[in-house]
């Protein structure tokens, strides 16, 4: 296999769009990635030929919808190298983590401890604070180094015998740093704690071999993985899913309901109350099936080469907020431009067709730790090319010339 950038780009109709007079240079993939035509086609085909509810009807459309929904779950299972029966469809990463906090959280007792990190997106902080306030558990915080990588030196002290869960990101949405898992696994296994990985940023960059990661929960989002909004997945081992109480009650998650009691369906359906986002799940299945067919050694090389070009090409007044090297790093590059607010940088580059994200990136504790109001962030995907990097660097030069203060 090899990697043909033009062929990849041709799959994404939005990449031909122009912003004013400039071509679109979409570098906000860490927020939401674009959707290829065949994913849109899969969604459209379902909606126009097989639209029906799942796991309920016996008519032809219902059978087709149920089969397509199950096939999507199988595809996600293949992408994560786990049994499909351990994949719970959710609204996204936030929904998946909240499910764990609500459901696994019910199994915890006052005084039990959960370790999170300063590197986390709010979606891997706030649900645990809510659980702390609801159940009386104790939250402990892993610090970060100045380069936005996790400081694991105090792991042994922070992870005590009362620790029940370590909830950390697989890769930071701000700094691009990929978490070093071996020390976390060792600390967790020493005390019998579970590990939850927020995979929202890592999932778009190739299939994941979850058994080799040695974690207990994994969450990711479809909309960052070239699939529609409103769909994501939680993976957990079957024994954990069976022990966890349901998160929401309603249709589809039951086996038998009387006016006195309810017997629940087995996992994963136990956690999918109500009509699920069927078309979105089918879109996610199509996206990850496609990703599995690609040459990820070549794509990773391409993404890292572009990352290095960004790091090398940033103007002198720009400070990278993240690892300086490519080791354990995603193509997510945050930066601070002396004297210019990230929103102004992003607004000016929008005029050049360059789509960046500016602000705190839903990571205010990290910004406080790094003493920043926010950063500008360029986040790349497999369809980005040298033209996008050139436009970013030229746009930054112009923005600094326009607004920079000596």
């Amino acid at each position, binding site marked *: 296999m090899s990697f043909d950038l033009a062929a990849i780009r041709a799959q994404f109709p939005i990449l031909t769009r122009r912003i004013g007079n400039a071509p679109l240079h979409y570098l906000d993939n860490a927020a939401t990635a674009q959707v290829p035509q065949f994913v849109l086609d899969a969604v459209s085909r379902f909606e126009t030929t097989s639209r029906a509810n799942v796991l309920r009807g016996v008519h032809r459309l219902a059978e087709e919808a149920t089969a397509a929904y199950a096939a999507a779950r199988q595809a996600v299972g293949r992408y994560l190298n786990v049994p499909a029966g351990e994949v719970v469809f959710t609204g996204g990463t936030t929904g998946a983590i909240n499910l764990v906090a609500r459901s696994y959280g019910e199994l915890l007792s006052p005084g039990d401890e959960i370790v999170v990190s300063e590197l986390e997106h709010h979606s891997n902080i706030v649900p645990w604070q809510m659980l702390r306030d609801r159940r009386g558990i104790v939250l402990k915080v892993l610090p970060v180094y100045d380069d936005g990588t996790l400081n694991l030196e105090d792991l042994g002290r922070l992870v005590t015998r009362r620790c029940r869960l370590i909830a950390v990101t697989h890769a930071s949405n701000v700094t691009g740093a990929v978490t070093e898992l071996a020390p976390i696994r060792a600390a967790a296994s020493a005390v019998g704690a579970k590990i939850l990985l927020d995979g929202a940023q890592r999932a778009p960059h190739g299939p994941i071999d979850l058994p080799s990661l040695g974690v207990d929960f994994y969450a990711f989002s479809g909309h960052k993985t070239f699939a529609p909004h409103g769909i994501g997945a939680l993976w957990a081992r079957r024994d954990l899913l069976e022990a966890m109480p349901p998160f929401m009650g309603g249709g589809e998650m039951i086996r038998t309901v009387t006016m006195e009691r309810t017997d629940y369906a087995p996992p994963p359906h136990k956690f999918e109350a109500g009509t699920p986002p069927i078309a979105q799940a089918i879109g996610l299945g199509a996206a990850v099936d496609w990703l599995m067919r690609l040459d990820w050694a070549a794509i990773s090389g391409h993404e890292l080469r572009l990352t290095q070009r960004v790091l090398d090409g940033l103007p002198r007044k720009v400070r990278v907020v993240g690892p300086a090297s490519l080791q354990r790093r995603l193509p997510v590059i945050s930066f601070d431009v002396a004297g*210019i607010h990230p*929103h102004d940088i992003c607004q000016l580059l929008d005029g050049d067709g360059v789509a960046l994200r500016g*602000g*705190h990136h839903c990571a205010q504790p990290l910004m406080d730790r790094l003493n920043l109001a926010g950063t500008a962030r360029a986040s790349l995907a497999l369809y980005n090319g040298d033209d996008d990097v050139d436009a970013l660097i030229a746009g930054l030069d112009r923005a600094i010339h*326009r*607004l920079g*203060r000596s």
Partner: protein
Amino acid sequence: MTDLYQDAIVAQAKAATRAGRLDHPDGSLTRDNPLCGDRVTLDIRLDGDRIGDIAHRVRGCLLCEASASAIGANAIGKTAADVAAAEKGVRDFLESGRPDPRLWPGLDAFAPVRDYASRHTCVLLPFETLRELMARASEKKP
């Protein structure tokens, strides 16, 4: 170059009129924009029910800095009611695009922001902070 960064706005921000902090203020208030992390801190000293002196510290974008600078240039001598009217005038101006008699001098420079709904809060945050600060100061008075 986008139309948003007109020379008048850039000049307003760079002027940074009354940027800094006041010693022994009668009131201070810090407010954040939860969407982007912008932070505005205002200090006021009162002269009766009017603003006698004011200073601002902004950790925010150029629009937020320009807005705070415009407050620094115009707020002295204003009452809580004046400030509330000015805030409403800015809000209506950004939403409707129609000239508003309640606008303080220089604020018509923000006309290009009308087309960028996500940036309205950048301009409004200093005004919201001042309105709340003056409302609190008024409540404290006997």
